[in-house]
């Protein structure tokens, strides 16, 4: 029998430290598969976030450069401007990109920096213990919104991708999910397109990926992916938000 599926080349052998059912490792694999398919392993630089995926450099077999919290888009901008032949991607969570790193991200998109952002949205701060993030849904219980998020006390869920689509320099923005096989295949296509936009030197590209966090949502992995499909996608609908490539 012929092997048709295995670990991509751009991933190291290290076992992931993520919780059972976490979407991060699926997204790591998809990014690595795209890097393999495009044949850009030797000239890719990644910027891992602060958050659960802080150790992403242990898993990707490409150059990685850690950024101070929230500043991935700024660090990626610097690297891409000096090393124009490199493919630079950032990997950020929702707390990172939509709270601490909002300014850097919006201005990088507005300047049309030729970088690709992978934005993992799980609606909570994962690593610090499941606090409310800007993307937390109304009514969602977190450790800092006991009884559920209230709009007049805690604000509304922030749709960063729609905001970035308004920036003239952004070229390709899509929201997908990794909660079912169809969504995972769709996500891989979106990541590939986002990298291609960068390779064609067109401008800023971002893929927002809705991902389950069973531990902090206090659900089983099976219930968590169902919650993404049934509840989260109502507030964050899956679609191509902007494509002027």
């Amino acid at each position, binding site marked *: *029998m012929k092997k048709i599926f295995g670990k991509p080349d751009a991933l190291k052998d290290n076992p992931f430290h993520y919780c059972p059912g976490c979407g991060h490792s699926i997204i790591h694999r998809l990014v690595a598969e795209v890097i393999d398919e495009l044949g850009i392993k030797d000239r890719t630089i990644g910027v891992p976030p602060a958050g659960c995926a802080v150790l992403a450099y242990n898993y990707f077999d490409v150059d990685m450069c850690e950024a101070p919290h929230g500043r991935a888009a700024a660090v990626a901008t610097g690297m891409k401007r000096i090393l124009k032949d490199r493919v630079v991607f950032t990997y950020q969570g929702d707390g990172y990109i939509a709270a601490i790193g909002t300014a850097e991200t919006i201005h990088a998109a507005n300047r049309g920096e030729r970088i690709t952002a992978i934005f993992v949205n799980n609606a909570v701060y994962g690593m610090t213990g499941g606090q409310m993030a800007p993307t937390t849904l109304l009514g969602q219980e977190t450790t800092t919104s006991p009884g559920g998020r209230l709009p007049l006390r805690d604000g509304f869920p922030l749709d960063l991708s729609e905001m970035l689509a308004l920036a003239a320099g952004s070229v390709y923005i899509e929201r997908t999910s990794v909660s079912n096989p169809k969504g995972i295949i769709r996500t891989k296509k979106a990541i590939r397109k986002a990298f291609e936009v960068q390779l064609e030197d067109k401008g800023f590209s971002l893929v927002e990926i809705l991902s389950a966090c069973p531990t902090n949502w206090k659900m089983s992995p099976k219930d968590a992916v169902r919650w993404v499909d049934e509840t989260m996608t109502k507030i964050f609908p899956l679609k191509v938000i902007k494509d002027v490539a």
Partner: protein
Amino acid sequence: MKGRILIDRERCKGCRLCITVCPKKQIEISPKLNTKGYYPANFLEEDIPDTGKIECTGCALCAITCPDVAIEVYREEKKTSKDDTD
């Protein structure tokens, strides 16, 4: 078309997502712990030597869904028209 999967017991964290997506229901949780203390997933048809009796089609949905890249998928190669005439 027939297939086989190979589950890396030590990488698997027993999240059971592969079990929910398998169309042939040929994956179950193993009763034995792995060294990390998880009950890993187990391919039911692992010990069937006769490929004719295997239900797995090698669709790879389990591997696509697996968060830990713990599953490798093998599939019987399609017979080309040349093979058929032989």
